[in-house]
């Protein structure tokens, strides 16, 4: 069976959208897809070591944030970092931090980001991956 490729431009730094991304990655992992994730601007904030586990910002329906976070807990939904890791354990997922985005949030080195990140990249790598992908998503 031919391996399909998913290219995800991950812009968001909000846990609601990162959780959605984690769900999609779970589906991609179940299908054995090869996944390339490009961590852009606000997502680089969420991927910083000091932010990943304490950042609880939501992008939408912000007045119901407490309900939303409580529901995630009630449903046993893993934190987005855990969902990403589970998916990464099951299929090929490479996570690239955009060099510019890293600098915006004072992250110059790979070590400034959580261990899920594989490298720091430039935009040409994203364009190439997007051109080669069967499915492109922007979150």
């Amino acid at each position, binding site marked *: *069976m031919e391996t399909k490729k998913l290219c995800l431009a991950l812009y968001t730094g909000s846990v609601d959208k990162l959780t959605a991304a984690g*769900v999609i990655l*779970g*589906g991609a*992992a*179940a*299908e*054995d897809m090869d996944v390339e994730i490009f961590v852009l601007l606000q997502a680089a904030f969420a991927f910083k070591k000091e932010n990943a586990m304490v950042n609880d910002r939501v992008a939408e329906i912000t007045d119901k944030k407490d309900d939303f976070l409580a529901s995630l807990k009630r*449903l*046993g*939904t893993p934190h987005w970092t855990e969902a990403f890791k*589970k*998916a990464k354990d*099951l299929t090929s997922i490479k996570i690239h931090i955009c060099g510019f985005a890293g600098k915006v949030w004072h992250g110059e080195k790979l070590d400034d980001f959580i261990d899920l990140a594989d490298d720091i990249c430039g935009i040409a790598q994203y364009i190439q991956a997007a051109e080669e992908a069967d499915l492109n998503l922007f979150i």
Partner: protein
Amino acid sequence: MIAIEELKKLKADKVVDARGTACPGPLLEAKKAIGTIKPGDTMEVLSADEGTKSDLPKWCTKQGHEYLGTIEESGYFRVFLKKK
């Protein structure tokens, strides 16, 4: 697929209890467990997630496994499949 009465008698080679997880948990538990059984073996996935009823048959079709059927119990589903 096989008849529901036959399905009820089936003793699967592997049972995966994913009732404590929401989507995509049951799918991922199935994906992990399928690697632990032999081709031709059967697997039963227990899930309380409504989406599993459509997800697992579609996943079986795409992965080449045989979807055998689903039994609805009170508050959860038993989804049966055979590894390719």
